[in-house]
């Protein structure tokens, strides 16, 4: 600030470049980023976040902590029970925003934080992080509008065909010759004296017997293009799900808090699809394009060739899935 500009500022306000900070504030740029917040559409109890933990995994300084919400029966509700971000650790890199498939976490413009408690004062809980979509519109109109349009398109796409995970479930029996994706069946006991190759062959054989045996509904001739079939008859779905309790959301291994070792322990001797299901990240985040059981079934049926789509499960899941597919002799894209 020169004397010339100071005098000039009495005639032209723009020449006064100094902003009198606490009273006046500079409007931040739309793209400005500081710390993340969580977006909700209707009310703060219904966040867009589905607690898939992708951001928790991807966050470089590991400042996010998420716990999944459950109802009284212990079933997962797709909402975070705990969603903490430690603002003292967060470096504002925006990786969580880019990683989120649900547009649930966005960067805020807020930059005035101070707290007398240095340990937990800036540990933001879900309550403090939740902000409305209207607020998002007020700080970043361009991005918010783009997100709204995209979400509306996705919702419209979802509404028209049958709900996304279902078709895969319906199609699984269609690939009956492939090993063991349907129905309860005879399994080779673990202590039976067979080599792994023999075991695989036997399992395959038994599963074919099980499908072909009378009393079971024959494989419906659904669309061969699994995963994308949209006109699957609902009549077939219901019995499939009822018949195989292992491929439902109530399965005991459908629990992201159990580690992969104990999950795999629960499914010993079960068919391939069930084993794959247990190997998934179990958060039903749908980042792969399916829910957990849908992805497992698509993989087992050979409809999905990419074994490394599971983000919450990361390397552990990818390695396990490849191992299982190798054992069963199902082809995939390495």
């Amino acid at each position, binding site marked *: 600030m020169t004397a010339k500009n100071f005098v000039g500022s009495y005639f032209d306000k723009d020449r006064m470049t100094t902003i009198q900070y606490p009273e006046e504030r500079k409007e931040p*740029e*739309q*793209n*400005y*980023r500081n710390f993340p917040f969580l977006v909700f559409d209707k009310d703060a109890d219904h966040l867009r976040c589905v607690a898939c933990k*992708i951001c928790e995994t*991807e*966050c*470089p300084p590991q400042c996010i902590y998420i716990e999944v919400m459950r109802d009284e029966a212990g079933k997962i509700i797709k909402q975070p029970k705990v969603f903490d971000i430690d603002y003292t650790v967060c*470096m*504002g*890199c*925006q*990786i969580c925003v*880019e*990683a989120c498939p649900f547009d649930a976490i966005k*960067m805020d413009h807020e930059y005035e934080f101070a707290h007398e408690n240095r340990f937990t004062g800036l540990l933001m809980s879900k309550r403090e992080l939740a902000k409305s979509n209207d607020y998002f519109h007020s700080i970043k109109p361009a991005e918010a509008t783009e997100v709204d349009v995209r979400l509306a398109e996705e919702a419209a796409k979802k509404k028209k065909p049958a709900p996304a995970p279902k078709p895969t479930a319906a199609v699984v029996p269609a690939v009956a010759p492939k090993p063991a994706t349907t129905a309860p069946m005879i399994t080779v006991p673990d202590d039976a004296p067979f080599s792994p190759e023999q075991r695989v062959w036997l399992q395959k054989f038994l599963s074919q017997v099980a499908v072909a045996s009378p009393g079971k509904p024959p494989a419906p001739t659904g669309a061969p293009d699994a995963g994308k079939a949209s006109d699957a008859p609902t009549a077939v779905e219901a019995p499939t799900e009822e018949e195989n309790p292992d491929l439902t959301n109530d399965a005991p291994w459908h629990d992201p808090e159990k580690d992969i070792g104990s999950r795999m322990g629960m499914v010993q001797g079960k068919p391939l699809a069930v084993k794959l299901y247990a190997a998934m990240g179990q958060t039903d985040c749908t*980042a792969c394009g399916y829910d957990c059981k849908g992805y497992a079934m698509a993989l087992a049926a050979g409809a999905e060739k990419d074994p*490394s*789509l599971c*983000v919450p499960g*990361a*390397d552990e899941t990818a390695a396990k899935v490849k191992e299982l597919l190798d054992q069963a002799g199902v082809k995939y894209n390495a």
Partner: protein
Amino acid sequence: MIPTLPETFDAASAEQPLYGPRSYQVLSGNDLGTQLLEISMGPQHPSTHGVFRMDVVLDGEEVVKLKPVFGYLHRNHEQLAEKTSYLGSMPYTDRLDYFCSMTNNWAYAHAVEKLAAIEVPERAEYIRVIMAELTRLVNHTCLIGFMVNDLGALGTPLIYAFREREKILDIFEAVSGGRMMCNYMRFGGVRVDLTSQDLKRISMIVDNYPYFLDEFEKLLTGNEILMSRCQGVGVLSKELAINASITGPMLRASGVDYDIRKVDKYGIYERFDFRVPIGDHGDVYDRYMIRVLEMRESIKILKQALKQFPSAGDFINPNVKLRNFRPKAGEVYGRIESPKGELGFYLVSGGGTMPYRYHVRAPSFINLTILEDMCLGEKVADVIVILGAVDIVLGEVDR
């Protein structure tokens, strides 16, 4: 009583422990019985540009021995990157040389793109060039400001430099969301597109920059004090510069024509018409002058890039996976010409989501290794300006 030594005692070559008690001997070139003085410059010294220490042994005003001591800002950058996803290291590269986060991002993205054979769309290449050259302007302008500040020109030139830098940082903020921690480049492109408004702002800065440089040069280039303090000071010979693998403006000031933009022609640099300034004496003044000339060349590149900027196209390769990014197994060394020199990233992939080995070839660090050679025989006050002209950022030196 002060012990005396034979007249031929060469303090510089005498091996002394870096830590612990040392015996300080007397130089007896004259009859005065003078004593060598060891001083520790830094780590809390304003002109060491951060937490850097020089263990200097002085004979009167003259430097007879100098040991750079660094590591105060070590934060395990390379090990962290081996435990983070490929994308997860991108924001950490901002924090290497925090003046030039854009070029750091580019160097890392360049290495990963080489590793995973990712194509970069044309528009993204132009955006990258624009951002990198703006970063070069920021770096060189500020460096000159700091260097002159070290010479005792407190304030004025540095404030002028910062005034110009703020304008460019405003653009970085508008585009990437961060002024210094940009985290802007992505594998296969950039994170946010440039709008026409951004381009207008950039071209305004580019158009006005030569006037600022003229003013800046009028203030400094012909300045008598600057000339007498910089000319013939801290001379680095061509041979030593090459042997010590010095890169960047330091190397070119010593008269070696080596600019990776010309040598590798990475990105789209072959499309631009620009020259590489070469120094003659290899002293501090040449290093200052090279940077001024490089800024003028950067402006030339920027003008061409803005003129050729494609009006449409992708700003990022849409086929690159953001989550679960797994380049196939292999090793790669990707390098670019950062404002400080050759910035390279060496990556070894095991096929997983995290690199098996991640190494940064930091120009600041390697350019610092010959500090002693440049300082021997100089006055202690010149050590400051020699260090200033090396252009170091401790975030990059220590990693």
